[in-house]
């Protein structure tokens, strides 16, 4: 297995931008049901800004950490909203977790995944079961770590992460929102997938395809 270098990570961000752009309308519609209908716009804006910010970088000259920090800053400043601080914190924590590495081994990618998830949890102060993106990110990070610890390849570990994210997002249908705007809905949020969890699946799916 070749290690993942800065150029591979940049391709990952390109893949996320494409996947989110394709998913934009569905995410806005999901958000329209229980929020303010702009989640797809914010995510597309954010990862579009990341793609544009990474494009001029000399990938041979910078380490993965610097790439992730640039991605974090550009996402945050393009978006604001809730997803801005959450994904920016995820990417900055991910950057810190792989500091000093010129390329990422399988274990580093798993650590990156864990740190991103912890960043989202810390910034949003959400726990599992509160109908947020954490309901996709946390099971995905756990599944990746468990598969890796059991000796699976990176591709298999990320497959497990993606499957867990999908199940986690689906499970938000049966949750009553406890965080964010939809928490004011109470039981009226039942029966609808959380848009933040849905977009997390799309992001994780693109990570899986480009890193696995």
């Amino acid at each position: 297995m070749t290690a993942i270098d800065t150029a591979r990570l940049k391709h990952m961000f390109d893949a996320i931008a494409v996947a989110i752009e394709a998913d934009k309308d569905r995410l806005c519609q999901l958000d329209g049901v229980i929020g303010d209908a702009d989640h797809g716009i914010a995510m597309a804006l954010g990862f579009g800004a990341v793609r544009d910010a990474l494009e001029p970088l000399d990938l041979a000259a910078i380490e993965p950490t610097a790439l992730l920090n640039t991605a974090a800053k550009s996402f945050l400043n393009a978006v604001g909203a809730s997803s801005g601080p959450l994904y920016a914190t995820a990417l900055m924590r991910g950057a810190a977790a792989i500091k000093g590495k010129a390329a990422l081994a399988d274990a580093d990618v798993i650590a990156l995944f864990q740190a991103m998830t912890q960043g989202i949890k810390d910034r949003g102060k959400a726990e599992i079961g509160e109908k947020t993106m954490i309901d996709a990110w946390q099971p995905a990070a756990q599944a990746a770590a468990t598969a890796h610890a059991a000796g699976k390849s990176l591709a298999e570990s990320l497959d497990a992460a993606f499957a867990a994210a999908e199940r986690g997002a689906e499970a938000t249908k049966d949750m009553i929102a406890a965080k964010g705007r939809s928490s004011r809905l109470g039981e009226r949020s039942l029966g609808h997938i959380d848009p933040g969890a849905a977009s997390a699946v799309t992001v994780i799916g693109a990570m899986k395809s480009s890193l696995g």
Partner: protein
Amino acid sequence: MQTKKIINDGNRSVDEMLEGILAAHPRHLRSVDGSPRSIVARDGPRPGKVGLVIGGGSGHEPTFLGFVGKGLADAAAIGNVFASPPPDPILECAKAVSGGAGVLFMYGNYAGDVMNFDMAAEMAAMDDIEVRTVLTTDDVASAPRDQRDKRRGVAGNFFIFKAAGAACDRMLSFDECERIARKANGHTFTMGVALSPCSLPQTRRPNFEIGADEMEIGMGIHGEPGIARGKLKTADEITDEMLDRILAEMAPSRGDKVAVLVNSLGSTPLMELYIMNRHVKQRLDDIGVAIHATWVGNYCTSLEMAGASVTLEHLDGELQTMLDHPCDCAMFRAG
């Protein structure tokens, strides 16, 4: 089908609006060099004065930037439509208005705004600017009374920012400005009703569905579902439903004074607002509550949403003084 809007490019709408606002109000407003989403008062910020930075998503005009000016807010950080600004423009606002006496951040209580403003406050602390935050939580419909800190900030921002801005302009201490801001928030109650949706410039699709003969009581200013949906009622019945909830919490005594704001969510015309205001006056007369001042019009909108909100501020001597303190903003003047 897409909604009709007078725009050029949905992704450029906020920046083009800001260009238009600066063109219209050069005497009141400027943007920070290199940070076009940070709008600062020409007159107001000065050494020794607590700085007041407000902000939030676009689409609620004249909230927030219309209330930037001498005697009210010193600066507003502007986000995308219905989305909190990121930390950088908030930080630039704080730097631009800091007079060495501290900076107050005030904005509606939404998860995204809290995260971005908190990040900006952490960054300001590294620049030796002390920041304190007062969230507005006036929307009675958005959480039960015992969970006031979970409520949203809506049109009542107008009264709450006004009180805080006056306290800052009177050169009161950081502690006093913060105390008065919190007190104004605790004394301000809003209820809204929505009749038809709005649409974002980027999607031009209605952001919720509602029957042709329906209304939704308590809907948020971003189209967040409210507390009850039913058949459209008369102006007096709607006003009664709102006031019943507001007055139950405010619990005014005979002889107390209030300030009134009857606000359009965007497309509901003045005629309908004044019909509502007529009944607000009747109801308050009935219980012997005096109206110190009334504002009727577009103060906190939700793009082209149809609907209205009623806000009462329960005044005491101090809050009345703050309300009467003169201010001169691009879109609002008093005193």
